[in-house]
């Protein structure tokens, strides 16, 4: 069984009008069953409102299922006695860098998680040092978070989770408010954590370039998983993705347009090298 497994997960909430009368029920997550392998770099795509964030919040028990179940490293999230263990196992980083930083000094911010877990003082210092080094921010440990760039703040947020020694980290659109430089910083840190420490990464995003290097991709729409597979498989379906309000990397789109115009190239081109190779095949035939 994978590190995270959901079975017929459904989340409903009641919509009320201004007077508090019930208007209807919305299924934000509708019968989702996924099984994530430990150590994978998973990407979850979906337009705004597709349910991807709601789905993510079930993995660390911030939300509990209305129906179905979520099992994280063997623990059922409905077992509220184990809620803290679930959250330590599956850490979460949010979109707005400022709204998840509590401390006024970087090292104190990173210590917040371990403090909550009751880790002894000496070990807290060790974990803080290791986490900050893992994200490349050790030099800033006594700085004020207010003086940092967006990318640096997100790295601090990641360090704060890493200090809790989770098995998996969920990130809800962590780069949406960053500039390209900040985005690259954050992605580099995530891949390093995934490759070097074997941390499972669950990245929710709608930046297609971030998805190319993932191990597996899930696409959400209206609370359901409508596509899943490797990046190559997913990006082969350009039209479908566009209908789902998503996009594909420019090189994939270019290849698709060429194919539409009659050039016989493969689907799912993700990199420039692949395109060059394909065109060479066509040209030198």
């Amino acid at each position: 069984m994978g590190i995270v497994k959901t079975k017929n997960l459904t989340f409903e909430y009641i919509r009320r009008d201004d007077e508090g009368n019930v208007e209807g029920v919305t299924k934000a997550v509708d019968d989702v069953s996924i099984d994530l392998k430990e150590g994978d770099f998973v990407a979850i795509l979906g337009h705004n409102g597709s349910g991807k964030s709601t789905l993510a919040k079930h993995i660390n028990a911030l939300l509990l299922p209305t129906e179905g179940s979520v099992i994280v490293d063997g623990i059922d999230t409905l077992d509220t006695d184990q809620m803290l263990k679930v959250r330590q196992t599956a850490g979460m980083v949010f979109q707005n860098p400022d709204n998840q930083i509590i401390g006024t000094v970087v090292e104190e911010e990173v210590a917040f998680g371990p403090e909550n877990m009751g880790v002894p003082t000496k070990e807290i210092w060790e974990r803080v040092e290791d986490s900050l080094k893992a994200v490349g921010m050790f030099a800033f440990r006594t700085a004020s978070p207010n003086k940092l760039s967006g990318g640096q703040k997100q790295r601090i947020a990641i360090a704060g989770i890493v200090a809790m020694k989770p098995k998996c980290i969920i990130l809800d659109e962590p780069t949406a408010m960053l500039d390209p430089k900040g985005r690259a910083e954050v992605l580099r840190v995530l891949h390093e954590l995934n490759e070097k420490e074997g941390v499972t990464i669950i990245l929710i995003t709608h930046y297609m370039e971030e998805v190319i290097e993932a191990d597996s991709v899930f696409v959400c729409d209206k609370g359901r998983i409508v596509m899943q597979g490797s990046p190559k498989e997913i990006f082969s379906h350009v039209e479908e993705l566009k209908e789902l309000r998503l996009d594909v990397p420019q090189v994939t789109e270019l290849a698709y347009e060429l194919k539409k115009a009659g050039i016989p190239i493969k689907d799912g081109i993700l990199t420039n090298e692949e395109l060059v190779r394909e065109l060479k095949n066509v040209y030198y035939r």
Partner: protein
Amino acid sequence: MSIIVDKISYIYEEGSSMERLALDNISCVIEQGEFIGVIGHTGSGKSTFIQHLNGLLKANKGHIYYNEQDIYAPDFKMQELRKHVGLVFQYPEHQLFESTIFKDVCFGPKNLGFSDKDTQIAAFNALRQVGLDESLYYQSPFDLSGGQKRRVAIAGVLAMKPDVIILDEPTAGLDPKGRDEILDCVKKLHDEMKITVILVSHSMEDVAKYVDRIMVINDGKLVFNNEPKAVFARHEELEKIGLAAPSVTYIMEDLYKAGFDVDRSAITIEEAKNSILNLLK
């Protein structure tokens, strides 16, 4: 309509320990009907620059002339300038405050002294221009989706009937389709209403697709001010300052290096496709 920026410099937090030169001797001209892209990363000074164009910030050195009038002249009314130069900040939906979106859009024209009738007409037109459905006009802004709220905020500035509209990263935080919708809407405004548009963005792909001219700001200095093709051809210099050309440019470079005689100045998918097809057919 013309805006002439003449050697402006701006010092941030003057006199404090955090003093630094945010804008360094910038000069440029913005003419009627242009669609200009301003690129640079966070901290480059681009947000500071655009706030000078509608007088929210005042340069320490240099002048700005709107329709040949010095906006720093003692008898010049900044409120007048803001009637003509509209500025939509990043995440503009965060400034909505009225009980209905219609009322919120009326805020701008009312402040500028439009009559009640003119205010309402301007608000209706603006909301229509951004493509918002009439059924939503009397809803609370807090009931709408992020993309819808953003369009309301843009309408709020359009209702003032500016000659120039400046948008600071209008696609921030939107999903791909949302991004296309906003930019298509802006393009339509430019083409149909002949409004001069200044678009501040991080996305080279967005900028390449829509603008006539690109201004690159780095460290408070204006380093490039030219047509997109000319700017992106110098992508090595762009990379040195931490920016890049659109992905398409790099695809074409790689193809060229592999022996394909393609048009390396292509900066959109359409251009790239046509160039490759010409080669292969």
